[in-house]
């Protein structure tokens, strides 16, 4: 899930951009952005970060960031963009200065902030790259299971939980030591996509896309039971597994419920914290995410031009949405296939809709 503003690391400070490239459009964005916040959207098909005035949707400019940008995070006053087609991430300063930060491994995908660093999963390899956003430098890599994808952080910010799409595990990483200390065996054939922890940190959850199931694990047991060099699975970490709709990808975990959209099935499975099934919500086209706004759960659908609540309410969107970032009680929605970005109020509909560079994807508000 991408929350408002994305993960924020400690130690914000003004960047030193003396040696950096500066994107020409960024100056205009900076000037116009002074009156309000800016929505920064990674546009995968344009290799650019598109900037919009959050209050009006006015297109402020684009910043070239490298091949296939997919997600972004803010840290140390900069916007860090994961460029999946590179062995690097790109830092964009408030003045538009662009700095390339080498990761060494292809496929930077998802961010997690801990211990003053940004950890980014290198999804074409078997590592998390640890980036110092203040220095705009790689400080090291942590070996994890192959093709890591989503990364969750415990509430204390001490441990990272990285799902492996290749090895069927969730690796537990000590953020300060930058070392894998344990792994949770989700299943030999599992393809782990989404990973999340409950807000209180008592439960962890992993989505096995291939097996169409969700697995609950005990984060504390996983961290304590690591074997040799953290490579052996912690034997007692898995609490329970449950079937979900076909082609699950991501999940939402709160202290009292777990929601898992099944994209192919068009369902949202709702569980209690230990995966006791509460309900199966049907009738969606291609549900991809869910957001709690105004006391209701609203489901984003990648094949339907509306947000639908689990209670049956609906709100129109300009086009199907693939990714959204919550901004207060509104959603900043990326309409990937339609090259549109919109700010949507679930009660009143679209606040604004703007054309974007090709394939808008993950976003942050800065």
């Amino acid at each position, binding site marked *: 899930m991408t929350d408002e503003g994305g993960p924020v690391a400690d130690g914000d400070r003004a960047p030193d951009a003396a040696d950096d490239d500066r994107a020409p459009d960024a100056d205009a964005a900076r000037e116009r952005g002074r009156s309000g916040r800016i929505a920064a959207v990674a546009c995968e098909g344009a290799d650019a970060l598109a900037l919009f005035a959050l209050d009006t949707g006015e297109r402020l400019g684009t910043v070239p960031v490298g091949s296939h940008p997919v997600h972004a995070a803010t840290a140390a006053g900069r916007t860090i963009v994961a460029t999946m087609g590179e062995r*690097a991430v790109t830092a964009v300063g408030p003045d538009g200065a662009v700095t390339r930060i*080498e990761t060494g491994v292809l496929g930077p995908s998802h961010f997690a902030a801990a211990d003053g660093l940004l950890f980014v999963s*290198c999804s074409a390899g*078997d590592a998390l790259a640890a980036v110092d956003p203040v220095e705009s430098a790689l400080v090291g890599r942590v070996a994890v299971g*192959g093709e890591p994808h989503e990364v969750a952080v415990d509430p204390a910010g001490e441990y990272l939980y990285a799902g492996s799409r290749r090895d069927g595990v969730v690796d537990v990483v000590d953020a300060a030591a930058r070392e894998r200390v344990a792994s949770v065996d989700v299943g030999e054939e599992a393809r782990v996509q989404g990973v999340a922890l409950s807000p209180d940190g008592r439960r962890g959850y992993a989505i096995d896309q291939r097996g169409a199931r969700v697995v609950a694990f005990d984060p504390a047991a996983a961290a304590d039971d690591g074997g040799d060099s953290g490579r052996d699975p912690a034997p007692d970490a898995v609490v329970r597994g449950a079937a979900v709709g076909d082609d699950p990808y991501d999940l939402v975990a709160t202290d009292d419920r777990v929601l898992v959209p099944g994209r192919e099935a068009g369902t949202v499975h709702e569980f209690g914290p230990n995966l006791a099934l509460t309900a199966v919500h049907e009738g969606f086209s291609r549900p991809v995410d869910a957001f709690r706004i105004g006391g209701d759960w609203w489901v984003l659908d990648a094949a339907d031009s509306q947000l639908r609540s689990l209670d049956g309410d609906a709100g129109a969107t300009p086009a199907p949405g693939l990714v959204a970032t919550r901004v207060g009680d509104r959603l900043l929605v990326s309409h990937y296939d339609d090259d549109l970005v919109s700010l949507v109020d679930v009660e009143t509909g679209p606040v604004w809709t703007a054309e974007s560079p090709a394939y808008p994807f993950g976003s942050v508000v800065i």
Partner: protein
Amino acid sequence: MTRDTDPAADRPADADGPPADTTRRGLLRAAAGATVAGAASTAGCLGVTTPANVAAQYEVSGNVAHFVGPEWLADNREDAVVLDARSAERFRTERIYGARRVPFDAITSRTQTDAGAVPDTDAIAAAFGEAGVAPDDDVLVYGASVGSRVTRTAFALAAAGHVGDIKVLNGGLSGWNGRIGTGSRGAPTATDYAPDPAAETWVTRDWLAERVGATDGDGPGLVDTRVPEAYLGAPGSDALDPDHDRHGHLPGALNVNWVGNVAGNRMTEPGRLVRLYEVDAELDRDATVVVYGDENVDPTSTWLTLRAIGFEDVRLYDGGFGEWANADGDRGRYPVETATSVVIETEGSVGGGDDSGDFSCTG
């Protein structure tokens, strides 16, 4: 078939059989004549292969280094040391007359350093010394064709700092029409081969670790010479080494299977190799290029091939993917990639069999 024995060979029972000047060329000439005669009495449409065109098909033309044809050997037979890269059994059965053999275990030996495994040039040099090779000898290496045992032997010479020329016989033994030997061979007079390690011919695990991810930009070219399934770490594939903790390839490596260097018993046509590596793989001949495989034998085919077609700075990762994949300690320093697919398709084929100097299952 009648064969010569070498002058220094242990004398087997049949060693006095054929006259010393009997050559395969002569035998082939006789066989060709018989074929022609037979054809004349039948349909008259059988193909005829003469010693001259057998040899000619393995000649090397153009600006190609290291690889030479049978004519070169015929012209330099008295001046060059000839090393047989095949197994001892094949060596005893048939070899180029006067050839010597070096134990292959020594040729592939490695020693550990803090930076990772490197060629054990002391062991390699000692083996060449026992074979009577001196550092300034011009050496020709052959196998049944031009496979990776042959090229590993050539690499071992280079790694030991060999001063003399290093040649490889295109076509291998099958292209040689000259005198052949058989039986056990007496030990040649040993030399004191003092190695002068040529560290510029190899790289270490840590050398690569310091450049992880830089190989697709301004850094060195990096070529994974294994089959695509191994490069991709294809789950369930027989190509995956079960002794490896991890599968895939070094970050930034592209895949060109070394078999594409070989067409039957000879090197692939040089123009085609240039297209393969410079056009398809987009390698820069003026830059450093590192090659690797699972171990340290098969990738030497690409090591020598690239040098032969004009690449100036080609280096072997002697530790190989096995060392990288099983690295102890901080594996974040030695990452592997899987979800990439820069595979350059090749169409090569390797003649002969295992242990013949043509093919190695260890690389």
